[in-house]
């Protein structure tokens, strides 16, 4: 399982890099998605690790996978709202550069 | 009589009256004033009932009441008083109506709020003195703070907001530390006895033995800081002059008369009994601060141009005496200290009332703003003189007895501290007489020619205090016998093992060989009970029992 976990760690780190280093909101959102996927892979990896057949023949609860489904749903919702914000920002500020958006200082 | 919950009444009469007066909107200002006065007089009557029906039980407190309050934390609504608390209660109950009468027509804006705040203040003060449960004590300790801050903050002088904020922050800083110490104490008691409790008696039994001396020192410091700010002890006193200058007359009277005693009362009732090792460890420091405070306070008073500030600094000096007495570890000094707490309440309370009198007439308080008042207001001048004499401790007045006992007692264990303290006696005369000279003597100002003398109402307030000054001055045993037992218990904690009724190091009265003295003992003496015959054994019972002095 370690290679899969290593992969997910790598993806997660790349996503983090994206969020930190990039000023363009869109790229940051994409990087965010990467991080989430990194997490998903880890979940699935663990689900696979603990996969065992129940006595009644059904496979054990692939809870990990169910969990990934939930994560995906959340990610979808999050992207929707995120992008809506981007659009409204673009419409009002005409920019996607996070550095211009410093209204919250003080 | 004992089934009546006297102590609870002391707290709840003013509190409930205040509530009623505040709640019902329809009351006129006059009605609120009369209501407040009535409540305070009832409380005064109650305190007298307490005074005359008080007989100290062998152990523990008198008039005990005990009901559960917060079950979960073992907090109980427990009340009980001893001689010291009783004297403080009577003092508070005495000064409260006087403060109300003194500000009868002095307060104009929002007068009803003023009197209601006074009542809440009285409830808080009574609560502090009667509480025998630490949590209850702390609640009242904080409750008392709010009305006082309002009194200074709303009805005060020009810089009232600064003064009241400073007052609140100063006291809060101290009491928060104390709160942490209380929690620690609660935990220590819980571990020691299995069930947590805030009862003072149990704390006094359990803590000294179950808490390490090192921890006791820090806990004593925490409690002590909170009380030292209240006293105020030397470095923590700068809030007092501002609070006094800006407070209205009634506020100053109560602040000086009672609130300052909370600090010393706190030391006596809580800090010393709970953490004796800490108390003993910090005694030299406190004695030094007290002695410095006395001289420092007096010096400061000499430089003031505002009478109220002058009296405020003199309070620092007077309470420096009290602290000196409390921590010198002799019964005489501690008794003197407790007495001085009451004396200071009376003399400084009276001083502030007197300042209030001329402030109402001239609206100035500068020491240089007056002159030749003795001609214009002779009765006022005489009253002021008597109170001044009490303040500087002239024999025959109560001030002398307090200071004499403190200095005599302190000398027995810390001669240097007594020496420095006694300097305060000299400086006291300097600034008080200078004040009296500037205000009353000299040619007199044309603008102050027609000031009318004290009115009967003002007399009604001042004369009882003057009478008390002489009564306590000539017959101090009335009060000393009351507080002897509890004070002895506290002092015993400071000097474990010493017999308090013996003057250490005193020489045995050697049989006076009579060859030189032709006429020996005086003839039979009439009158009085224990004849002070100078014969050897007479002196023995009178003075120190014989004690071998190694040649």
């Amino acid at each position: 399982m370690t290679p899969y976990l290593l992969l997910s760690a790598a993806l997660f780190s790349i996503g983090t890099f994206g969020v930190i280093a990039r000023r363009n909101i869109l790229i940051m959102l994409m990087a965010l998605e990467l991080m989430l996927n990194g997490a998903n892979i880890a979940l699935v990896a663990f689900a696979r690790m603990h996969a065992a057949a129940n006595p009644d023949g059904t496979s054990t609860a692939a809870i990990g996978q169910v969990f990934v489904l939930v994560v995906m749903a959340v990610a979808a919702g999050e992207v929707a709202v995120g992008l809506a914000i981007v659009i409204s920002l673009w419409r009002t500020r005409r920019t996607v550069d996070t550095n211009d958006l410093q209204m919250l200082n003080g | 009589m004992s089934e009546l919950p006297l102590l609870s009444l002391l707290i709840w009469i003013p509190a409930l009256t205040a509530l009623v007066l505040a709640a019902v909107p329809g009351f006129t200002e006059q009605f609120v004033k009369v209501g407040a006065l009535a409540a305070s007089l009832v409380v005064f009557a109650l305190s007298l009932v307490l005074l005359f029906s008080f007989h100290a039980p062998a152990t523990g407190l008198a008039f005990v009441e005990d009901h559960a309050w917060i079950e979960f934390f073992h907090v109980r609504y427990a009340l009980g008083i001893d001689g010291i608390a009783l004297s403080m209660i009577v003092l508070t109950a005495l000064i409260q109506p006087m403060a109300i009468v003194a500000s009868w027509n002095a307060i104009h804006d929002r007068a009803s709020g003023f009197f209601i705040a006074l009542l809440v203040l009285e409830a808080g003060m009574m609560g502090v003195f009667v509480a025998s449960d630490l949590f209850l004590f702390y609640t009242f300790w904080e409750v008392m703070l709010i009305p006082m801050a309002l009194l200074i903050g709303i009805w005060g002088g020009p810089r009232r907001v600064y003064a009241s904020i400073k007052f609140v922050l100063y006291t809060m800083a101290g009491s928060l530390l104390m709160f942490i110490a209380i929690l620690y104490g609660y935990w220590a008691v819980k571990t020691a006895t299995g069930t947590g409790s805030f009862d003072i008696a149990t704390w006094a039994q359990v803590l000294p033995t179950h808490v390490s001396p090192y921890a006791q020192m820090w806990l004593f410091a925490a409690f002590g800081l909170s009380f030292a700010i209240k006293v105020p002890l030397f470095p923590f006193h700068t809030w007092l002059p501002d609070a006094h200058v800006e407070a209205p007359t009634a506020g100053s009277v109560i602040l000086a008369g009672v609130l300052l005693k909370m600090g010393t009362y706190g030391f006596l009732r809580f800090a010393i009994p709970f953490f004796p090792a800490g108390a003993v460890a910090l005694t030299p420091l406190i004695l030094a601060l007290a002695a410095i405070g006395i001289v420092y306070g007096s010096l400061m008073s000499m430089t003031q141009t505002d009478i109220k500030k002058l009296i405020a600094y003199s309070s620092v000096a007077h309470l420096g005496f009290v602290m000196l007495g409390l921590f010198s570890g002799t019964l005489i000094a501690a008794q003197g200290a407790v007495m001085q707490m009451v004396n200071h309440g009376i003399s400084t309370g009276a001083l502030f009332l007197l300042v209030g009198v001329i402030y109402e007439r001239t609206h100035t308080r500068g020491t240089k703003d007056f002159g030749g008042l003795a001609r214009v207001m002779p009765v006022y001048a005489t009253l002021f003189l008597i109170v001044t004499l009490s303040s500087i401790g002239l024999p025959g007045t109560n001030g002398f007895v307090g200071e004499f006992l403190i200095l005599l007692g302190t000398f027995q264990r810390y001669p240097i501290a007594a020496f420095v303290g006694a300097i305060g006696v000299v400086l006291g005369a300097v600034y008080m007489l200078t004040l009296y000279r500037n205000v009353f003597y000299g040619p007199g100002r044309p603008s102050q020619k027609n000031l009318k003398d004290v009115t009967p109402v003002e007399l009604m307030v001042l004369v009882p205090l003057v009478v008390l000054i002489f009564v306590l001055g000539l017959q101090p045993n009335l009060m000393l016998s009351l507080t002897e037992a509890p004070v002895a218990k506290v002092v015993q904690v400071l000097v474990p093992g010493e017999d308090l009724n013996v003057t250490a190091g005193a020489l045995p009265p050697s049989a006076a060989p009579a060859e030189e003295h032709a006429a020996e003992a005086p003839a039979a003496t009439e009158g009085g009970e224990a004849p002070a015959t100078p014969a050897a054994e007479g002196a023995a019972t009178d003075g120190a029992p014989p004690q071998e002095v190694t040649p």
Partner: protein
Amino acid sequence: MSSLLWLIPALPLFGFLINGTVGKRLPKPLVGAIAIAGPAIGFILAIFAFLQVHEGAGALATYASWISTGPLKVGAGLQVDALSAVMVLNVTGVGSLIHLYSYGYMVDDAGFARFMAYLNLFMTSMLILVMGDSLPLLFVGWEGVGLCSYLLIGFWFDDLANVDAGRKAFIVNRVGDFAFLMGMFALFALAGTLGYSGLEAALGHADTAAVLTAGPFAGFTVGSVLTFAAASLFIGATGKSAQIPLYIWLPDAMAGPTPVSALIHAATMVTAGVYMVGRLDFVFIQAPAVLTAMVLVASATALLSGAIAFSQNDIKKVLAYSTVSQLGFMFAGMATTFWASGLFHVLTHAFFKALLFLGAGAVIHALHHEQDIRKMGGLRKDLPLVFGVFLIGSLALAGVPPFAGFWSKDEILGNVLYTALEGGNPIWFLSFGMLVLTALMTAFYTTRLVVLTFFGEPADPNRHPHTPPWQMMVPLYVLAVLSVVGGFALASPLEHFTEPVWSHLHVNEEMFHHAHQVALATSLVAVVLGIGSAWWLYSSGRARLEAFVDGPGHLIHKLSLNKFYVDEIYEWTVVKPTQFGADLLFWLVDRLLIDRIVVEGSGQLALALGAILRRGQTGALSIGTFAITGGTLAVLGVLLYLGVAHV
């Protein structure tokens, strides 16, 4: 008789209460009567007590408890033994005379009732002082008389100078009382009690070499503690009885009305210190070092104040400095442990100094408050009676035999010489020398005073002084008789009467008589010289006087006139620094150190910290994300280190 003892101090107290409260509304004669009745009846009672004590009945005492807590039992009892009997007689006797005199002197003053009330309060305090049976009670009287002297000096309080003089008196006395308290505490530490009987029993024959093991003086010998106590008590006495260094208040106390100066600053209050030393003889006798210091201080004071009296132009100032000088004599007498001689001089001094002051009062009263002797002159013809009594008083003061002053002063000189010869201590010889020189100077300035006031021609002729009313003259006559008779009549009876009260050292009889002969001779020479030179210098107009003053005596005259600048020295070394120190302390410590730095400082600190952190909130997203990642990194690192490293 003992049960009536409390009446003696109580009667003037009632007088004070009545006059003090309703005095203004009562007719003046009634006020006067009430005021005089107190001390007069007291005097009669005192005579009874004296007689009873005289028949060997010892001391009469009543007992009441004042303060009792723990080991301290302070009684409020009164006692009259030989010593206090004499003092009570002196106080009530001279007091009554002066009250009568005050009636005449102050009757037309607006505050007459208040004045008489204060006088009565003074009598009460003084009587408590001399009749109290314990040190705290003595202290009550001690400060009580201090208060009354403050009130009476500043009696005419419209003029701030008087008030300042009164305040100066009270504060300087308070400094003395501070030392007195220290002495009292030391005695209590040593004896465990403060009553005289208890003290005498415990300390009377204490083993001075024994080292104390407990109490504040652990490690010191009993003797050293006794010396400390005696020294402190003596400093207290210098405050009350105006000796160096605390005498500066007495000359200024002349700002009060003249009867006050007579009663308080000549006859009674100032002798309180001498009474205290006499009362605690058993302490002082065991502290020889203090006795030597006492005689030195006493004779130095006598000499210094004598010199100042030389050139004073205010009649009352001359008498004031003379009083300080005579007090020096009294303390010198006490220092020789021949306690009776000190007391004897107290009595004689009370007689002739009260006489002189009252005489001066009569002169001032006659000349409508003129006090400068240079403006007086030739009163011999205008006020013959006053001149007569004043002359008697002066002769007594100067020490001319057979007047009272001669006997008591000679007695003291003899004792001092005897102690010097016996002990061989050079200080005693020096003191003897100074005292003889003072005797000469006393004679000189007394003659100068009499000559300038009564002889020569009047300064401004159109003045016609009128003889004072009988109330003022009668006391003068009585005191004059006492000044003449008081000397030889009281010398030996006083000694035998008070002998049992005191403890004495062994006396070498023949050395004693030898010393007294020599002292007698020297004092007579001194008196003659003094009077002669003063007469020669002053009697023939001003010529010789100017010659002396402009010539060699210029510097001394100037120094003496300005009181050797002692007041100014005190002003600059004590008063100004305290004032300045207080202001400095106020601004430096109270305002700056505590208020600005600690209190408001902590407030500013909080604000400053807030400002720094605020700069961090730039709102830029990158800062935020960096912070978050860094944070997680750190947390992860710590957890891993803890988790993995230990697993």
